[in-house]
C-alpha cells in the first residue's frame, strides 16, 4: 500500500490503545499479503501459479471476490487484473531497491486478460487464474484494511482512520459534530476543493495527481484524463476506494451515474475543475 496511516479515537476510552494496535495490525497484515512488490507475498505466490486452484487466505479470497464483484458491476471499468498493464508502464519498480518486479519473468501475458480469467471457489477457498496475469489489489486491499481497522474500533464509536487520504470516520468528532472532511484540490496540494460532513462513512479519493498518471482504463490499457479526482463517500472504505477508481475511469457523467445507481455519494472533478456530484453529498457549511 505504501501509506501513512493515522488513527484517532475521540475521547479517552479505556482500551483504545490496544484496539489501535490491533487496527494497525490489519494494515501490516494486509500489506504483507497483498503487496505486489514482494515476490513472496501471498498475492505474488498466487499469481505465480496459473491453471490450478490455489488455496488462499480469507483475506486474499475476500479481497479478490469483492474486486471481481465490482469489476462485474462496472463492466470492467474497475478490473484487478489491470496489473500486467501497469507493469508494462513502469509501475513495477520497488521503491527501495529500484528492482523491477515481475515484468519479464514467465510467459508473455495476453493483452486481453481480464477479471473474467479469475475463478473463485468459495467452498474450497481457492482461486484459479486461467491465464497468466497480475492481480492488483491496491484499491481493495487498502480499503479492506481500513474496514478491518474500523471494526476493531467500533466499540469506541467516535474515531477517524486516515490511510494516505483514504478515510473512515466513525461517529462524531471532538466537537460532537459529524466529521469535516476536506477533499484535496487535484492540482494544489495544500488547497481543498470541497469540505464534506461525514459520519460512519468512508471517504476515498482517486486521482492521478500524486505519482503521475497511475490509473489506467482496464478496458483499453490507456491512461484516463476525463477526471482529475474522484471522491466517493460510502459505508465502507473497500467499496468507496474501488468505486472511486471506477468512477475515475468512467468519467464524470457515467461515473456519477454509477454512484447514483449504487446508492453512494461522490464528487468528481474534471481537469478544468468542473464539479460533478451526487445529490445526496453533504457539504460542510
Amino acid at each position, binding site marked *: *500500500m*505504501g*501509506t*501513512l*496511516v*493515522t*488513527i*484517532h*479515537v475521540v475521547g*479517552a*476510552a479505556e482500551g483504545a*490503545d490496544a484496539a*489501535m*494496535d*490491533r487496527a*494497525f*495490525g490489519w*494494515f*501490516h497484515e494486509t*500489506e504483507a499479503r497483498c503487496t505486489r512488490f514482494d515476490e513472496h507475498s501471498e498475492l505474488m505466490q498466487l499469481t505465480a501459479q496459473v491453471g490450478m486452484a490455489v488455496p488462499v*487466505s*480469507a*483475506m486474499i*479470497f*475476500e479481497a479478490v471476490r469483492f474486486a471481481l*464483484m*465490482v469489476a462485474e*458491476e462496472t463492466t470492467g471499468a474497475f478490473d484487478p487484473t489491470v496489473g500486467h498493464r501497469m507493469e508494462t508502464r513502469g509501475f513495477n519498480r520497488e*521503491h*527501495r531497491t529500484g528492482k523491477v518486479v515481475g515484468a519479464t519473468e514467465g510467459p508473455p501475458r495476453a493483452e486481453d486478460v481480464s477479471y473474467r480469467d479469475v475463478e473463485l471457489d468459495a467452498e474450497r477457498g481457492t482461486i484459479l487464474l486461467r491465464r497468466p496475469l497480475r492481480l492488483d489489489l491496491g484499491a481493495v486491499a487498502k480499503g*479492506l484494511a481500513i*474496514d478491518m481497522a474500523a*471494526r476493531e474500533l467500533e466499540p469506541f464509536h467516535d474515531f477517524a482512520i*486516515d490511510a*494516505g*487520504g483514504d*478515510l473512515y*470516520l466513525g461517529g462524531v*468528532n*471532538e466537537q460532537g459534530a459529524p*466529521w*469535516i*472532511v*476536506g*477533499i*484535496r484540490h487535484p492540482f494544489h496540494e495544500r488547497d*481543498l476543493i470541497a*469540505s464534506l460532513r461525514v459520519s460512519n462513512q468512508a471517504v*476515498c*479519493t482517486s486521482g492521478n495527481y*500524486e505519482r503521475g498518471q497511475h490509473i489506467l482504463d482496464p478496458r483499453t490499457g490507456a491512461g484516463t484524463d476525463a477526471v482529475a479526482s474522484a471522491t466517493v463517500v*460510502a459505508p*465502507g472504505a*473497500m467499496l468507496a476506494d474501488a468505486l472511486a477508481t471506477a468512477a475515475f475511469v468512467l468519467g464524470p457523467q457515467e461515473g456519477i451515474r454509477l454512484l447514483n*445507481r*449504487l*446508492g453512494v455519494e461522490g464528487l468528481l472533478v474534471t481537469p478544468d475543475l468542473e464539479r460533478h456530484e451526487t*445529490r*445526496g453529498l453533504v457539504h*460542510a457549511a
Partner: protein
Amino acid sequence: MSQGGSNKKVANSLVTASFGAVIAVYSAGYVRTQAAAERFASQIAERRVPEPNVPDTAAPPSETPSAPSSANSPDTAPRATSKPGVVASNEPQPAATTSPVAASATVIEAPAPSPTQAPVTNPAIASPAVNQVVDLAPVVETKQEAATPAPKWKDGTYTGWGYSRHGDIEAEVVIQGGRIASAVISQCLTRYSCSVIDVLIPQVAKRQSPDVDNVSGATQSADAFYGAVVQALAKAK
C-alpha cells in the same frame, strides 16, 4: 439518500458484500495479525543501526523516553537511544532532496502544559491519536508558505515511530506555549542518513489545516507524513 429505488438491490449487494468480506476476514482470526505485528516489532529491533552523525542543535525534548503506548505495539520495540539524532529548527532549510524516508508517528500523549511525560494510559487527558507510515514516495517538497501562527496545541511531548520499506524513524515533537517548539528525529534506523530528511522537519511546524478534521486524497509523500503529524497533533489538542 437520493438513490433510485429500482437499483437499490445492486447497491445493497455490493455494500453487503463489502461488510461480508470484513466479517469473513475478521473471523478468520486475528491470530495471524497479531503475529504480523509482533514480527514487525522484532524487525524494528533488528534493524537498529547506529545513530547518524548529525549535530544536535536544538534542546532535546526533556528526555522523554517516549512512553510506550501499550504493551504489544510495534512502538514498544526497545529504544536503545532516546537521544535526538537529528534536530531541526524552524528556520528555512535548503531546498530539495529526495527523501528515502517513510515515517510515521505515534502520538502518545497530549498532556498538560509541561512536557513532563504523562503516562500514556492517563485516560483523563487526550484522545489517542496514532500515525503509522508504511511507505513514502521518495519525494520531498520544499516550497512552504509563509509561516502562520500555529493552532494551539496542548503543551507536551509527542513521540512517534515511522515505519517503511526504507527503514524506521522515531520522531518527537515538543509543544510549548501552544506551538511546536521543536521536532526532532530521536532515532533513525533508515538505510540512509537521516540528514537527508531533516529539511522536512520544519514543515511540521508550518503546515496545518485546522479547519477540517481530515483530508481525503492527501499525498503519500514524505511531505504527507509531516502533514499528518501536524494533523495528529491538532487532534490531540
